[in-house]
C-alpha cells in the first residue's frame, strides 16, 4: 500500500462538476499547491466548500467555479477577498452562504452518513429566505422546538494540508488549531493530503501520535510538497506571506489582473511557482504571525 502521488496525479483523479472541500481557515493551512495544480488544469464547474480564503478567490478568478459553499471568504488581515468579491458582484457563481458552525455541522452529518443534523443557527435570519430548500424539523419530544435541519454536505473530494504523512496515509498536524479538517475528510469520498514531508512509515510515540488528525482509511492520496501551503500559513513552520497576498489582492484592482498574476507566478510546476515567489527558503523562513 503506497498512497504517495504527485499534485498532477491528484488532479487527474478529480472531474468536472465535482464538489471539493478545502481544509484550513481563511489565510491559514490551505493546500495551495493542489489548488495551483487545479488552476493549471482543464477542470471546471467545480463546487468548492470551505472556510474560504485565496483558494476560493483564485479558483473564482480562473473560472473554475460553478458554486461556492462557505461560512466566509476572507484573508483576515485583508478582510475582503477581492476575486471572490468580483465573482459574486458579477453574478457569475452560485453561492450557498452558511453560518460557520452550520458548515461544520453539515460536514459532520455527511461524516456520519446522516441526512441532516438539527441546530439553531440560521433560524430567524436571511438564510431561511435565501435558501428555501433548507427545511426545519420539530423536536418529537414535549418541547416541540422548531430547529433547522442542516443537510449533510457530501464531498466528492477533500484537499487538506498536513505537516507530515506517510505512504500509508497516516498524517500529523501540529498546528495550534486543526480547524475542521477532520470533518472534511470524513465527509469526502476521497481525501488527498498535501504534506510538508512524506516518509515510508510514521512510527511515533503516544504524544506524537495524538497529532494524527484522522485515520488513514480516509486518505486516498498523499503528496509531498515542502512549502506547498504558501502564501497561506502553516504553523509551526511558516507564517503567511503578507507581501505576496497584498500583491495578489492588488491584481484584482486591474482588468485582467488575474491573468497577470497567473502569468507572473503560477508557472508550469510548483517549482516554477516557488522560484517566482522567491524560492523555498524564503517561504519556509516566513515568520509566524503574532496576533
Amino acid at each position: 500500500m503506497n498512497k504517495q502521488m504527485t499534485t498532477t496525479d491528484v488532479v487527474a483523479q478529480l472531474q468536472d462538476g465535482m464538489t471539493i472541500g478545502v481544509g484550513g481557515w481563511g489565510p491559514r493551512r490551505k493546500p495551495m499547491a493542489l489548488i495551483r495544480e487545479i488552476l493549471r488544469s482543464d477542470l471546471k464547474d467545480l463546487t468548492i466548500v470551505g472556510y474560504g480564503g485565496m483558494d476560493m478567490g483564485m479558483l473564482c478568478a480562473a473560472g473554475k467555479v460553478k458554486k461556492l459553499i462557505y461560512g466566509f471568504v476572507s484573508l483576515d488581515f485583508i478582510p475582503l477577498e477581492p476575486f471572490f468579491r468580483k465573482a459574486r458582484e458579477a453574478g457569475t457563481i452560485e453561492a450557498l452562504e452558511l453560518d460557520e458552525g452550520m458548515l461544520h455541522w453539515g460536514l459532520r452529518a455527511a461524516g456520519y452518513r446522516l441526512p441532516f443534523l438539527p441546530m439553531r443557527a440560521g433560524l430567524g435570519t436571511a438564510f431561511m429566505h435565501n435558501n428555501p430548500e433548507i427545511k426545519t424539523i420539530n423536536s418529537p419530544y414535549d418541547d416541540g422546538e422548531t430547529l433547522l435541519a442542516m443537510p449533510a454536505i457530501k464531498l466528492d473530494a477533500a484537499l487538506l494540508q498536513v505537516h507530515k504523512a506517510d505512504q500509508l496515509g497516516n498524517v500529523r498536524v501540529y498546528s495550534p488549531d486543526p480547524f475542521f479538517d477532520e470533518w472534511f475528510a470524513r465527509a469526502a469520498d476521497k481525501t488527498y493530503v498535501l504534506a510538508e514531508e512524506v516518509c515510508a512509515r510514521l512510527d511515533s510515540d503516544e504524544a506524537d501520535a495524538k497529532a494524527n488528525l484522522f485515520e488513514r482509511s480516509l486518505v486516498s492520496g498523499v503528496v509531498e510538497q515542502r512549502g506547498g501551503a504558501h502564501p497561506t500559513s502553516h504553523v509551526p513552520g511558516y507564517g503567511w506571506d503578507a507581501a505576496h497576498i497584498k500583491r495578489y489582492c492588488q491584481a484584482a484592482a486591474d482588468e485582467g489582473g488575474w491573468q497577470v498574476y497567473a502569468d507572473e507566478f503560477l508557472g508550469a510546476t510548483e517549482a516554477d511557482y516557488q522560484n517566482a515567489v522567491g524560492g523555498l527558503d524564503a517561504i519556509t523562513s516566513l515568520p509566524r504571525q503574532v496576533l
Partner: protein
Amino acid sequence: MSDFTLSELLICACADVWKDDGEVLATGIGIIPRIAQGLAKLTHSPELMITDGEAYLTETPVEIGAKSHEGRSYGGYMPYSRVFDALWHGRRHALVGPVQVDRWGQANISCIGDFDKPKRQMLGLRGFPGNSINHANSMFVPNHSTRVFVEGEVDVVCSVGYKDDNWQPGVRRDFASVERIVTNLCVMDFAGPNHALRVISLHPGVSFDEVQDSTSFPLILADDCVETAHPTAEQLAIIRKLDPRDVRARQIKDNPPGIRP
C-alpha cells in the same frame, strides 16, 4: 481625566458590555473591542475568558501589535471547534462590528444589495447566525451614520434581532439577546418599549439630536441617559499597557480627542 482620545473612551465603553457577565468567553472583533476585552478582564471582570487571538485562552491579555510570542502563557485551549461547542452552550458574549444595523437589532456583514447579485459582497455570514441565536451579543460601530443604521431591514439579516416576523413559530428565542451598541457618538441598548433602541449614554459633547440625525429610524432617549464615563487614570494606564504601540490611534479617523474641542 480630560486628556484622552475618543478611541480610549470607546475602549472603556466597550469594556463595560461584559460587566456582570460572569465567566463567559469574551470575544471582541477588531482592535478597539479587543483592547476592550482585555481592559474588562484587568478591571471589573477578571473571570472573563479571552483568547490570545488564535487558539489559546490566556489569563493575561496579549499586547496588541506584539512582535513575538515570547513570554506568552496559556491557561486553556480554544480552537474553533471548541468555540462552536462553547457558543452553542451559551457562555459567550461577542462584541462584533456590523456593516448595517436595523431598528430590530439585526445586523449585516454579508453583502449590500441583493444576495443573488450583490452590489457589494463582504465577508459572508461568518458566525453571526449561530452567535446571535445562542448567546449575548453587542456591537461596535465606529462610524455612526444613517448608512449603518438603516431605515428598513438590513440587506441581509445575518444576526437575529427583535423582529417578530422573522421568527418562525416554535423557535427558541430566549437564548438570543442583543445587549449594547457602542458607537463613536453614544451607547445604546434595546431596553425601550418592545425592544426599541435607546440611547443610554452620550459621549462628551454629543447631543441626542446629532445621534438621531445620524440614524435612519427613531431612537429613544433613556430617562437616565448620562454622559459616557470618562476613562479613569487606571483604565488609561491599562490601555497603554495593552496597546503600547498606540494602534488604537489609527482606528477612528484623525484620532479625535475624547472630549470635543
